[in-house]
């Protein structure tokens, strides 16, 4: 099996601060991996480097065996990796369906003009992430935090990326919404999506991941199954007072 994502000796420094410290790991295609660590451990920084929003100081990131180099974010997404944000970034004045539509759009002006939107796919995806019929035309500015997360997840899936980086998808969600999103993620796993998930909600994360990577101060401190990592002494020490 090829690796969907390969991180090799990734280093990112901001002045004197080391945000990512010689980090290496692989994710096999179809695998679902949890990335955990205390606040400020550098989880989101790893996401930003994979997406090309931040340029790594050194090290290599490969997607499906091809190195990403200095490619811009949009191109990385077209090559198959896409992410959500801790603070969702919706298009506030666009409706739910229109937000999803932007995710589905091909990066070709010609096709944007000549081909209409595929309404059925948009609606199906909106229903999948848990929107109901009467949410479709609502502008994103009217949505709750939970709905905004669902919308962002939908747009991320819509880009067609097969590797999804999910940043705190459960934060700010009600229990009902958590189980809905959780079910959706299970579906995505069954469909063969590769996932890297950051979450502070460990109980919600547990059933969704094949294994877990724990980092602290940008360095990997443990890796293994969920239980192995959670019971690791270093991890417990670094998490003390957090879980």
């Amino acid at each position: 099996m090829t690796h969907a994502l390969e991180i090799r000796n990734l280093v990112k420094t901001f002045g004197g601060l080391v945000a990512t410290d010689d980090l290496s790991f692989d994710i096999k295609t179809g695998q679902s991996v949890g990335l955990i660590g205390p606040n400020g451990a550098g989880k989101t920084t790893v996401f930003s480097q994979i997406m090309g929003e931040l340029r790594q100081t050194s090290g290599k990131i490969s997607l499906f065996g091809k190195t990403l180099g200095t490619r811009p974010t949009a191109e990385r997404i077209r090559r198959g990796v896409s992410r959500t944000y801790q603070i969702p970034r919706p298009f506030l004045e666009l409706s739910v369906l229109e937000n999803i539509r932007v995710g589905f759009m091909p990066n070709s002006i010609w096709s944007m003009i000549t081909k209409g939107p595929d309404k059925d796919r948009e609606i199906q995806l909106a229903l999948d992430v848990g929107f109901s019929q009467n949410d479709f035309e609502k502008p994103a500015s009217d949505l709750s935090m939970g709905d905004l997360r669902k919308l962002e997840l939908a747009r991320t899936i819509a880009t067609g990326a097969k590797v999804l980086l999910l940043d705190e998808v459960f934060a700010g969600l009600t229990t009902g919404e958590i189980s809905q999103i959780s079910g959706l993620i299970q579906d995505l796993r069954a469909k063969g999506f590769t996932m890297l998930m950051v979450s502070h909600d460990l109980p919600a994360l547990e059933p969704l991941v094949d294994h877990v990577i724990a980092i602290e101060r940008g360095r990997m401190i443990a890796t293994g199954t969920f239980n192995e990592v959670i019971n690791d002494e270093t991890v417990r020490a670094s998490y003390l007072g957090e879980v």
Partner: protein
Amino acid sequence: MGLRWFHFAAWGLFAFGLALLPELVSKGTLRTLIFANYLAIFAISWDLLSGRTGYISFGHPFLIGIGAYTSAILTKRFGVEVEIAIPIAVIVTMIAGLIVLLPALRIRGSYFALVTLAFMELMYQLVQVIRPDLTGGTRGMSGIQTLTRGAVNGFYLSSVLMFVIAVAAWLLLRTRIGTALTALGLNESAVEGSGLSTTKLKMFAFMASAFVAGLGGAFYVHYLGSIAPRALFDINFVFTIIVAVLIGGASTIVGPIIGAFFLTFLLEYLRPFLPGAERYFIYGGIALLLYMYQPKGIYAMVMKAWHSLHERAAK
């Protein structure tokens, strides 16, 4: 594109109205209407660049002027046929559009608006200094070949041009590109995060705008028969274009047309009371009030009324 019967009806009615106008109004009013048509074209051009993307152009006459000057110089100084000069002018304007695009790749908001203003002022100064034998320097050029004779023909030509541009732009923005451009204005990084190249989208908006500006500028100069830098690269001209778009309703294409006609007639009806530039006092005052209290413009007001009417009829 979700076209409905009333869309066809509205555009058809508009075309019919334009065709009928020369029978109904005086020659003088017709000349005013010609100006309204060209203003509408410039306003549409501005709307394409700035209405959705959030890249506000304070120097739109830069593009319009390049179209106008290119065609004027080609026909007058080099004896090029108008039929060839205008397409060349449009192409040159689009190349100029790329120059405006360049800063937009790095800066946004106020800074971008200022660069466009600087472009316009730069153009104003350059036109007077560089090769005044071609541009006519400070005094500009006159005796440029005109395409039509008389108000009626001028009106028909400008109306057809405006109508075609308006429908094309309106249709264009109803496709997915319209949604993408709105998204670009709302959150640029999220557009990038949806896998779309923002550079490509900006380039498209700027090229479309430059195309319309070049076309409008070239036809306008061949209607006027003369061109002068002070009247063209003027902040008052920028003001007129922007106000037309905002009063009518930005990002709608239909709004700028409404705005252009509304303003032209407002200016015209003020003429008996205030013959000179002081008309702008009332005109600008109305624009300011409207913009402060209804930033979405007349179009949004009309649509609101239409929807409430619709709902009442449905009940």
